[in-house]
């Protein structure tokens, strides 16, 4: 099956700093999503982005499908951005998503 690697595993930032999270995947995909998991466990959709670039407020994401990686950018980070960020992929668009191990982000005031 597809392998998904996320880096870095842990990231500590000061409030206001910018960050880039990376997701590498081992095969072509038809679905790629970024999620934020809050401290209570809920996975919140950030982006559906199998290719191209999208922006939503302080967050943006880019997927370069031909090179099999995706980047999530967080600008002007806030303490509420803390949590675990997951990248998940699906080769055939059947939604049996394969998740990476996540990046744990801590934003300090």
């Amino acid at each position, binding site marked *: 099956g597809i392998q*998904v690697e996320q880096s870095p595993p842990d990231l500590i930032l000061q409030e206001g700093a910018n960050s880039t999270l990376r997701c590498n995947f081992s095969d072509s995909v038809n*679905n790629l*999503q970024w*999620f934020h998991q809050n401290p*209570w*466990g*809920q*996975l919140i*959709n950030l982006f*559906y982005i199998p290719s191209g670039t999208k922006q939503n407020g302080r967050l943006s994401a880019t997927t370069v499908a031909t090179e099999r990686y995706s980047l999530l950018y967080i600008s002007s980070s806030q303490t509420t951005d803390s949590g675990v960020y*997951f990248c*998940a992929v699906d080769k*055939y*668009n*059947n*939604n*049996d*998503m*394969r*998740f*990476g*191990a*996540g990046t744990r982000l801590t934003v300090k005031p």
Partner: protein
Amino acid sequence: DAGVTQSPTHLIKTRGQQVTLRCSPKSGHDTVSWYQQALGQGPQFIFQYYEEEERQRGNFPDRFSGHQFPNYSSELNVNALWLGDSALYLCASSLRPGEAGNTIYFGEGSWLTVV
């Protein structure tokens, strides 16, 4: 627009017991998938239901079974619980498999502790 709802939110079971978890998909969605997330790990796909049939299955034993009802809601059953089944169980809903642009949405999860 109702999102994905799961119940119960927390439960404690004893080894060897059986548990049933429930999920209602997001309005307009007809496909339900279940995931298991152990502490410190990413979610792992258990299985997916569409048109009341199991369509895909991850690497989980037969102790894990499910059901989908005509209203698209779903249940996850786990028999003969053991300590390693302690995890967050997540339900995800989506449009039918293979649909282009198919975004999945997760519920808040059910925290299962086996003692």
